[in-house]
């Protein structure tokens, strides 16, 4: 429940957020189109084939990731006291922050032709080794990246359910099937659509993984064609049109996924990994543990390979390099700025949507809600390479002043993280508002006071998680940096790829390890911040 003034502020904020996003995408695209001529567009068999492949691999990757994430999130929720559980959840954040190339090399150590799995199979007398190259490899890599993400998102939904639910389930002696049908599924379903949409978008825009593990040009995504159009062919109109095709197709899929969404479950109280008296020891509990262990192995093994390779590097020399520290500082600063901007934008959009949902009124309100919804999703599909080129064109001449390119990098990274942040914040925001809304109104705590004393503290944990997610994502991103280039903006992924590009593979492995450690640290910090605020909550 919001006061009229709060409604006005929320909507104004929403329009501001949408305007900013529209400008951030529209201005560079317009600049790019205005300043250039190109052969433009034709629907050819090549385009049809890569479109089909893009949708196929993204669809399968999403289906697999979500289908595995649901039982995994459920198993993790059922065992809040499992040893190593919180460590595992932190480890689950690392794939987000790794450049795809590093992850691909980690996966290859485990699943590659000369990998651990194939070596083991060979010893067992299996001649035909597992091949990671081809569609199966792409799917495996996408599950590696997205299973942890989807699991974390859905687990948050389950943990938001009040502890009373589980107590009652235990008292009533509900069966596993009934607990799932009546309690768990409604909570998961609310998030599954959103998580699936996010994973789908990430897989649609996947580039390096698809090429490296795809085995050949038969595995080509639209993103590759966009890159090709802008790079070798230098045909910006074609790049923009391909991006539009990508956005249109993905929107269609996202709209279809919406159907899966069920209305929000209102939860009267917030619990932190509540105890689960309904879970009895026995075979099902054992099955949960096996599932958790198997998934943990699947995600951790490639990470462990990264760790081992990193430890083999000359870490002392790497860590005493001044350039590395400059890269760490720049990366952290850019990531923090991007995460702050992203969280801010997400709050504006989420609050505006909430305001519209609460008082179903005018046409303008519905438009606002709809725009905020798509803005929060589709920004992920605007190719950074296109936006970067457009901004570059606008700023040419001014690029020597570093503040501007840095701000553009922050903005692009913030936009890339926005869909993640929204998915973390929106459900929690809805729960918090329904819990505190009436109380605030009756106590007369409104406006800025309410925001400061009630709403933001209640969101401390999801905000901290969202911030850490966004930072991790931005840490591993090279895209926007590469375009502005110069030896003056040095980030960790940039330095890593520089080392890889000049035979210094061991140094690159060391830097990958540093990136992974930073991601872990971020997650640990966000857990602590969130938990601390939570405990202090009256």
């Amino acid at each position, binding site marked *: 429940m919001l006061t009229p003034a709060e409604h006005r502020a929320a909507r104004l904020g929403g329009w501001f957020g949408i305007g900013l996003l529209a400008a951030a995408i529209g201005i560079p695209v317009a600049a790019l189109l205005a300043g250039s001529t190109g052969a433009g567009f034709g629907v050819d068999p090549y385009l049809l084939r890569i479109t089909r492949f893009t949708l196929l691999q993204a669809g399968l990757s999403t289906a697999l990731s979500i289908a595995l994430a649901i039982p995994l999130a459920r198993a993790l929720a059922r065992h809040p006291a499992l040893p190593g559980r919180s460590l595992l959840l932190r480890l689950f954040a690392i794939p987000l922050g790794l450049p795809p190339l590093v992850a691909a090399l980690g996966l290859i150590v485990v699943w590659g032709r*000369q990998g651990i799995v194939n070596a083991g199979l060979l010893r067992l007398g299996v001649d035909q080794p597992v091949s990671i190259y081809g569609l199966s490899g792409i799917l495996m890599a996408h599950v590696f990246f997205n299973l942890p993400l989807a699991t974390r998102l859905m687990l948050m939904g389950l943990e938001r359910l009040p502890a009373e639910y589980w107590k009652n389930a235990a008292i009533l002696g509900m069966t596993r099937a009934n607990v799932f049908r009546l309690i768990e599924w409604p909570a998961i379903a609310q998030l599954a659509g959103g998580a699936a949409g996010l994973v789908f978008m990430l897989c649609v825009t996947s580039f*390096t993984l698809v090429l490296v593990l795809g085995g050949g040009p038969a595995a*080509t995504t639209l993103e590759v064609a966009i890159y090709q159009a802008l790079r070798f062919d230098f045909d910006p109109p074609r790049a923009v049109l391909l991006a539009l095709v990508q956005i249109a197709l993905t929107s269609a899929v996202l709209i279809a996924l919406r159907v899966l969404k069920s209305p929000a479950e209102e939860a009267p109280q917030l619990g932190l990994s509540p105890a689960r008296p309904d879970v009895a020891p026995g075979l099902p509990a054992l099955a949960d543990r096996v599932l958790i262990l198997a998934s943990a192995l699947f995600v951790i093994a490639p990470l462990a390979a990264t760790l081992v390779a990193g430890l083999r590097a000359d870490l002392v020399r790497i860590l005493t390099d001044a350039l590395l520290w400059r890269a760490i500082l720049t990366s952290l600063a850019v990531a923090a700025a991007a995460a702050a901007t992203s969280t801010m934008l997400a709050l504006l959009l989420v609050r505006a949507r909430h305001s519209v949902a609460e008082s179903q009124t005018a046409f303008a309100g519905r438009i606002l809600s709809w725009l905020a919804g798509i803005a929060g999703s589709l920004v992920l599909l605007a190719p950074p390479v296109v936006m970067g080129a457009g901004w570059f064109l606008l700023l040419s001449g001014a690029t020597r002043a570093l503040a501007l390119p840095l701000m553009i990098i922050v903005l692009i990274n913030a936009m890339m993280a926005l869909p993640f942040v929204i998915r973390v914040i929106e459900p929690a925001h809805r729960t918090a508002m329904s819990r505190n809304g009436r109380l605030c109104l009756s106590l007369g705590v409104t406006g800025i006071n309410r925001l400061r004393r009630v709403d933001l503290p209640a969101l401390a944990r999801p905000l901290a998680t969202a911030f850490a997610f966004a930072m991790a994502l931005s840490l591993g991103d090279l895209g926007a940096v590469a375009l502005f280039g110069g030896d003056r903006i040095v980030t960790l992924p940039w330095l890593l790829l520089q080392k890889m590009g000049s035979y210094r593979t061991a140094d690159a492995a060391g830097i990958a390890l540093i990136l992974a450690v930073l991601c872990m640290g971020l997650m640990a910090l966000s857990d602590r911040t969130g938990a601390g605020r939570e405990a202090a909550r009256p």
Partner: protein
Amino acid sequence: MRKPSLFFPLFTLIGTAGLVPLAAHADDRTLTVYTYESFIAEWGPGPKVKQAFEADCGCRLDWVGVADGVALLNRLKLEGDKAAAGVVLGLDTNLVTEAKATSLFAPHDIDTSAVSVPGGYADDVFVPYDYGHFAVVYDTQAIKTPPSSLKELVEGDPSQKIVIEDPRTSTPGLGLLLWVKAIYGDDSAAAWAMLRDRVLTVTPGWSEAYGLFTSGEAPMVLSYVTSPAYHMIAEDSDRYQAASFSEGQYLQIEVAGILKAAPEPDLARQFLAFMLTTGFQDTIATNNWMMPAAPTSEPLPEPFERLVKPTKDLLLPSDEVAAHRKAWVDEWQEAMSK
């Protein structure tokens, strides 16, 4: 009501900008050179070249680096005559025709008699500064007898894999495409169809391919004749060697040129002349891992003596590449996708 929280990102944005040290302009005259990033990396030729050039030009040399040669050309197309550079260093001969078509470059007007590159490349706009031959590099611990010709590579045992780069996204990938074109001509599609079974995967760039190769995934990779020199000199290892092909190796010549809109044309010309002296050329072999295009003050380190000597230098004319690249890439991707 959201005002206070807006300040946070704004402050962070400004804070980020403050991280970057401001450059002090000590000298009046400044030459800006656009190049690719690996040239100006800590371990690249850039820092040494800067020091040597500044020592006798009484000026300041500023590097601006972009991803690679292709990105360099794109940046010029984006900036047009607003580009703030005097010299562009790092295009290769495949890009020369396109670069000239931008009409942003001016004739260099310098004495290029010191230049010595295979095939005797000469041009009135671009000056070569180094060159290298593409080669299939193999792991001696995995392969005893490497292919001795492109034909053997194409027709060889499909279980012995090679990692190649994508010609749609990378320069070495385009190099192999042209190599096959130079040998097989109109039969290239059939050759690619045969080679396809031998290709483990096609990576977007050189780094990914070489990373897969050194991690042991494939015993062969498309790289450079000079690649083994790095392992011999920096790692003291003879494990990785280049295969010599009887049809010859495809050549890549890297060039630099002067922009018409150069703020200090004299300084730009002075730099191009300097490029052919030992102060520049001495840094090429062991920093850029390419072959110098002009005399060096001392012979190259001993491992360079042991590198493969190409039996023939293959190079398609720049005009022909520019005219057919798109069709050839389409042909490649058609043959490789079946």
